[in-house]
């Protein structure tokens, strides 16, 4: 909690700078309008106007807050204008993809650790794939799957799965290999089989590594789901809201969707962090 005051101070600073920037960026439009109407404006008038524009260059924090309140709390969850509705569409794809990607990733990691051929042939590609911009193929996957009739949730989930797959493989392999030679030797003195060594030593030892990868994976899955919503003409989901806001010049909508996406990301990573702390505490690994 020693960090609480500095963090709050930094956040307060960011909000202050945000307000100042909003005035700075939006003022130009106000001046233009005033010049056209032939009206002289005082500073406070400009200040006030900069905060309430319909299509501001930079929405002021309270405008975004109002829009968030409007679309999250004021709208019914089933309404097509509710951010909760859109948020859920994105989150559901994210979660489905994340679970698939993580499951497959763990399986592949177990295979890599126990089979030398898989290790030498697949692992270099898993590591190299982290340098490749996989997200670039998102549109293609969406369109290809749409054309064979697979629409909606599943294509996005596949992208999400793909994005969480590799971090989980790399992290899990590191984790399963983390027990040192001494501990592995101890297992050999007990004549433990590879299966027993896996369940009793390798798997528990890999938990910290797994959770770190899960956090990276879920953030990546979310980005995948958002980007996956773009190619289909932006019908539903947070990515869709971002895109449509950008098409129609609705800046406040863009910002609200962005903040919503940020909150979703924070929540998802936070939940994993919570599970991590509970699990590691039960295992006595502390923090």
């Amino acid at each position: 909690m020693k960090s609480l005051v500095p963090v709050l101070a930094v956040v307060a600073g960011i909000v202050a700078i945000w307000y100042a920037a909003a005035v700075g960026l939006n003022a130009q439009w106000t001046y233009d309008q005033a010049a056209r109407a032939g009206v002289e404006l005082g500073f406070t008038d400009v200040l006030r106007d900069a905060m309430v524009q319909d299509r501001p260059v930079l929405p002021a924090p309270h405008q975004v807050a109002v829009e968030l309140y409007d679309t999250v709390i004021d709208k019914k969850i089933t309404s097509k204008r509710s951010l909760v509705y859109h948020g859920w569409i994105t989150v559901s794809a994210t979660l489905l993809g994340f679970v698939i990607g993580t499951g497959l990733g763990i399986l592949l990691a177990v295979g890599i650790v126990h089979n030398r051929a898989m290790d030498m042939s697949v692992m270099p590609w898993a590591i190299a794939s982290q340098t490749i911009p996989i997200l670039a193929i998102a549109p293609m996957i969406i369109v290809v799957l749409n054309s064979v009739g697979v629409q909606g949730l599943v294509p996005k989930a596949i992208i999400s799965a793909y994005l969480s797959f590799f971090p989980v493989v790399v992290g899990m392999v590191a984790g399963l290999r983390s027990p040192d030679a001494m501990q592995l030797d101890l297992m050999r003195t007990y004549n433990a089989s590879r299966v027993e060594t896996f369940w009793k030593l390798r798997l528990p030892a890999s938990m910290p590594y797994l959770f770190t990868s899960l956090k990276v994976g879920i953030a990546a899955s979310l980005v995948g789901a958002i980007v996956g919503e773009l190619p289909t003409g932006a019908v539903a989901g947070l990515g869709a809201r971002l895109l449509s806001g950008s098409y129609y010049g609705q800046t406040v909508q863009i910002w609200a969707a962005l903040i919503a996406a940020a909150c979703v990301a924070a929540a998802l990573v936070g939940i994993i962090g919570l599970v991590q702390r509970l699990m590691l505490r039960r295992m006595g690994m502390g923090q």
Partner: protein
Amino acid sequence: MGWVIFAAVFWAAAWWVNGRLSTSVLADQRGVKLIVPTIFGLTILVVWEGLVRGLNVPGVILPPPSVIVGTIGDSLPILWEDFVQTFVKGALSGYAMGCGAAFLIAIVIDRSAFLQRGLLPVSSFIAALPIIGTAPIMVMWFGFDWQSKAAVVVVMVFFPMLVNTVQGLASSEAMQRDLMRTYGAGYWQTLIKLRLPAAMPFIFNGLKIATTLALIGAIVAEFFGSPIRGMGFRISTEVGRLGLDMVWAEITVAAIAGSAFYGIVALIEKGVTFWHPSQRAG
């Protein structure tokens, strides 16, 4: 059908070869460590080609590798133009600005423990967010051209780089810093002679992460709007026209660019941090 059988046989043969190689005494040699994944990669390509031809998969769903290579050969000028637009102008400039800014700010806040304790959690938090969502906003501020893409890249690489640099600057041991005090060394001397060299492994970790983020940021930002050039632009429009061979061609270029970029930074890292245990153990 012959193609499918061919693919199956090739797969089996390659699997057998790799199986034998990896369990043999040769397995630890560097050459073998390169051959095995190469065989694996080649096998994927061969199986891909075989299945697509053998099962007569339409080219608008999944073109075979041979067609993609052909398209690459035919479209080199376009691919080059897209590469320059996205990678050189968008990703690279954003990378340089973002990493440079993060490094400088890390040094500026180095003297204030208060700012560090405030900025580090906030930066880690922001680094986990879908920054790509700022693309439409950047387009609004900086226009359709490469500047908005560079801006997205700057935001994407800034926070991970800041977190890594600050961690790196903190990584020198108390004993080392005490030694500097016994020499009566000042802040800047200690920074340049001890803390910056000690921070290099962390800084390069950040730089490597940033290479991937930069390329992804530049390409995906173009999905939100771009002039008639750029890898992201080409991918989204060709996807719309079902010209998937061109899409795969662009992806291949992106993959090569991404790995080459990462590889160059890793090579520089090897030179600068030759002394670090992780580089020596090898």
